[in-house]
């Protein structure tokens, strides 16, 4: 009887330990639906103004927080509203312990038309927690080049109706302040719902 009880206790302990080991395994970029970087990318160091006019040191303000960084503009007819809309929609469906640990930062590539008021109101339509950053286009392009993204370009001569060519990628920085994956246009809400709970896991530094 004692032997049976001991065997049972050992088996239960083994299962618990095995489960704990699996749970503590660091997530792997290849488990995500985003595009993996061959080498994780360091978080860039830049400071721009928020739509409220405050100074925002990107590296300090997002330190240790999962951060989705995107470059776009409010007059964008498709990519920007779809990306922002999809991320906001999924954050609303995820448990608070996941959604509260995700910061979304969008940097405008059209500082001429995207005034703080306009940009702030546009972002609040998706989610009031989204952070909008504004700075001179040359500086914004420098940041994009640092991140291996193409610089933004203006197309069209009309000062009111021109378009801005820009990268369609959302870069995801994890809690280790590095980006292991990015998300191209075409990323669906299902993909975000699958990946965000993995991105907020704390042990990404093991990758």
């Amino acid at each position, binding site marked *: 009887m004692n032997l049976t009880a001991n065997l049972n206790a050992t088996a239960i302990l083994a299962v618990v330990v095995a489960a704990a080991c699996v749970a503590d395994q660091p997530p792997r970029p290849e488990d995500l639906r985003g595009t993996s970087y061959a080498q994780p990318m360091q978080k860039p160091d830049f400071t721009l103004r928020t739509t409220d006019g405050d100074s925002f040191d990107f590296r300090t303000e997002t330190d240790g927080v999962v951060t989705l960084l995107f470059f776009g503009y409010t007059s964008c007819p*498709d990519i920007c509203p*779809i990306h922002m809309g999809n991320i906001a929609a999924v954050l609303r*469906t995820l448990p608070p312990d996941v959604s509260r640990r995700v910061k979304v930062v969008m940097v405008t590539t059209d500082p001429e038309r995207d005034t703080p008021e306009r940009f702030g109101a546009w972002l609040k339509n998706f989610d009031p927690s989204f952070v909008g950053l504004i700075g001179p286009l040359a500086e914004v392009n420098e940041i994009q080049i640092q991140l291996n993204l193409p610089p933004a370009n203006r197309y069209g001569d009309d000062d009111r109706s021109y378009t801005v060519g820009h990268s369609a990628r959302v870069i995801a920085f994890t809690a280790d302040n590095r980006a292991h994956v990015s998300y191209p*246009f075409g990323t*669906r*809400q299902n993909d975000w719902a699958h990946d965000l709970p993995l991105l907020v896991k704390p042990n990404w530094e093991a990758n």
Partner: protein
Amino acid sequence: MSWWCAAQDTAWGWTWQPYVGVWVLVAALVLCRLLAESLWAPGASLDHTDKRGRRLPLYLTGVAVLWIAADWPIGPLGAGYLLSVHTIQYIVFAFVAPPLLIAGTPRWLLRHMIRRHWASNIARTVSRPLVAFLIFNVVLLATHLPSVVDGLTASQLGSFAVDMSWLTAGLVLWWPILGPLPELNPMPYPGRIVYLIANVFIPTVPAAFLTYATYPIYALYELAPPIGSLTAVEDQQIAGMIMKIVGGFIVLGTASVLFFKWARAEERREEGRPAV
């Protein structure tokens, strides 16, 4: 200039676009009917329900609703921007236009259309309720699969194929109710009512998926340039409700009409008058 409405990568604009294929289809449907009326309408053998031109307004209404559903702006909005509009197109193609087209075609013309052996066989086969039920519901489910919607609606030919499959499936669905000539052994009223009610249940499957899914089902509409402040999930929920409520209302409404016709026919039979 485009042939048929398909998904586009550009933002929606309220600028009119011509869709030549839609006009050709509408013109063909009207011309064929008028030509048949003038060439083949029998002179003496028409009963009071089949007098020349009597059913023409119904037929032309059917063609008109097809035109509205396929052409700008509903056509391109449904093909590439809003799933709710795509579902309105489905309702029109499968539930509104077909009964009008069948009811608007006189019996002599139906007889003329199925005079050939193969056509008569097809008419006889789809007059069987189980066959019509299967054809309609298989088309309904297949054309709402994500791979089919995302794959086909992106091209003009694919979008045309989906629209025409709805129209064909709609004609098959309504044929046992409105189409069969006496020689095709039409179902009695109770059978027609049961058949219609049975056809309410299968569409609830895609409708439920659309209404209750947490995330968008179709990539095409999720990644389409947005229109207004409607989110992809809200648009999908509206689509689900349209499919369930409007489609169900049309089918059950028709079943109710048939029920009263049946009751009236029974009354007439009891009174010794011929049923109409």
